[in-house]
């Protein structure tokens, strides 16, 4: 193979690889990126049931209910204006409690309930999920503990 052709082949291969990687990344991004919603955003957005969503807000006082199996909980997440019922099966993080902030990854079902796969709470007293910190600044009705 002539040197020039060889360089060209290599360059073309490189370009093809980069384009393939970019397409792969884009298609994965389109399907898999979870947008962050507060309950107010979620109420406005009319989300598709089943779409990956990240939901953040405060756990409403008095809303936490344990189901008889002992490992499933129902509770309500609120941002002061709107609220969303959430169901979660698993062990909640140590700092998950009523009146505290949390972020959940999951999806809405057809009835409008949020099914959480994972729940993040404050890691420690100094921790607040970054997306939630922004929300807290916006809605003054909630007190932030910082």
């Amino acid at each position, binding site marked *: 193979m002539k*040197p020039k052709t*060889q360089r060209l082949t290599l360059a073309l291969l490189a370009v093809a690889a980069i384009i393939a*990687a970019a397409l792969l990344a884009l298609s994965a*991004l389109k399907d898999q990126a979870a*947008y962050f919603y507060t309950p107010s955003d979620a109420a406005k957005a009319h989300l598709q049931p089943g779409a990956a969503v990240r939901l953040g807000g405060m756990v409403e006082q008095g809303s936490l209910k344990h189901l008889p199996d*002992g*490992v499933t909980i129902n509770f309500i997440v609120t941002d002061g204006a709107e609220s969303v019922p959430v169901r979660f099966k*698993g062990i909640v993080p140590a700092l998950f409690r009523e009146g505290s902030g949390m972020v959940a990854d999951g999806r809405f079902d057809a009835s409008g309930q949020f099914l959480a796969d994972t729940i993040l709470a404050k890691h420690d007293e100094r921790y607040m999920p970054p997306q939630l910190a922004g929300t807290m600044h916006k809605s003054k009705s909630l007190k932030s503990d910082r």
Partner: protein
Amino acid sequence: MIAEAGLAALWLGAALCALQLLASALAVRGQAELAAIIRPIAVAQAALTALAFSLLIWLFVRVDLSVLLVAQNDHSEKPLLYRFAATWGNHEGSMLMWVTILGVAGAAVALFERKLETRTLFATLGGQAAIALGFYAFLLFASNPFARLDPAPVEGQGLNPLLQDPGLAFHPPTLYLGYVGLSVAFSFAIGALVTRDVGPAFARAMRPWVLAAWIFLTIGITAGSYWAYYELGWGGWWFWDPVENASLMPWLAATALLHSVTVLATRDGLRAWTVMLAVVAFSMSMIGTFLVRSGILTSVHAFAVDPRRGSFLLALLFIYIGSALALFGARVGTVREGSRFDLVSREAGLVANNLLLTAILGVVLVGTLYPLILEAIGVKISIGPPYFNAAAGAPALLLVAIMAAGPLLRWRRDDFRAVLRRVAPAAIVALIALAAVKIFAPTISLLSLLGIALAAGLALASLAPLWKRNLARTPLFTWGMVVAHLGVAVSLAGMACDSSFTAEKLVAARVGETIAVGPYQVRFAAVEPTFGANWQALQATLEARRGGGDALLLQPQARAYWAPPTETSETAIHTALDGQLYTVLGKQVGDGRWQLRLWWKPFVTLIWAGGALIAIGGALALVGRLRRGRPRRQEAWI
């Protein structure tokens, strides 16, 4: 006094660093008057940073609460190891460690680098000084670790309990050695561009430094993954968290660099590309540091909340990456074309390796930065495992296939059919594994199925370079390559087994109940309170039986620390030859039952065993390279 001495040492170090930069610049331009002092300055500067860092450790160990940083992060009731480790378990201390390692790496180059042409060496030390100067400025102007607190409090605020773990004592230093070690490769590239010295000799000089940094990165990532696995109690070992990605990206770039530098050293190919990769690798280190330390991500790693620090780090990032790329752009024309090679050759295999690693790097970079960029314009989005597994999985598996074939190719030119014959045994083993797994586990996911098959093929192929060789006379760096590639196969097998064959039980149980998970019968024997130096806990006692064997005791805890007040869950893990039993104690339910989460994870330990093998392979190669300065061509495997 001690704090002031530390600060003085830092200022002196910064001044010496500026002098090092100036002297190097003059020496490169041909004014040799100051050249003689460059090496001693590099060493003295390293000694000063090491002194400052030792003084800070001393302050932490003695719990000197009149120092702000100590008061914020230390506590007199903490065990000695954690008072020691708390030195770098915070923003300022970890940045001081960064600068210290940067200084020490520069001194090591000044003391031990003998292969590099003198002018290039001076330019390299100048580059190292230029990097260090920016981080000195960051320390002195935006994150002074020695700031005083007046009046001193009676007690410190303590360290995040998640960080109170023996792993913390070692994980950040190893990772930093890797991050900052790549600065040497960066400085080498800058030096060679400045003096127009990009060639095989330069590559042979740079290779041990890249290897060393890469070994530390491998160890740091492996250890960090195991830490997350047992400390977080979520049963996972990689979460595609931005902080994890921040360490993975430099590793991907360094892995690519490690392979391209070999092409440059042995075959004089890929000149411009290798220099580019050296720049990219350290850029990834700096991006990682920025992500982790700027406070832009909130995690157990993010200490800084002062937005000025974030902007400062971002500015440093732009200056260094920007000027390196500008230099590259200006000088790439002077880099002569290297020697040629055929499309079927070892070089071509390594080019494919580099392309795929770069593609994976790009995918991870996009997934990590895209949410942050979107957030700046007000859109909040989170990108998690589904994206990364889908987008990085395919190129990673392809890379494994290439990795199996690559070492079986000859340099420069090879015959395609002969290659097929050499690869055939591994391909057959992979196909047999594929069929066997598909028959015994028909529901397995495609990614895991391919993972196991490729791991089997790669394991065999990675040993092939030893075939029919005199093992005693096989050079150490060949052994290194074999062991590292075998490590990838082992790790991949562990990942695939864990993601497809894990059994999980999540129950609320009463004391006395027995739960079946995987091959184990686990009896929930008791829950009792217990306590440690700075925590109290509830501890479950679980008796696990397998077949008719003796009961194993596992005691997971739900801990409450009081400085700072935090609750954590301590997992209890039993390691068997064929996997791990992983147990977590949850909360008490209203009716008195306890939440328990049990996993049986077959062969999960292979993931970290593979990581260790990769690091050991790197170490063998490094020793081999250092022992033999000039390898003969035909034995130049890495």
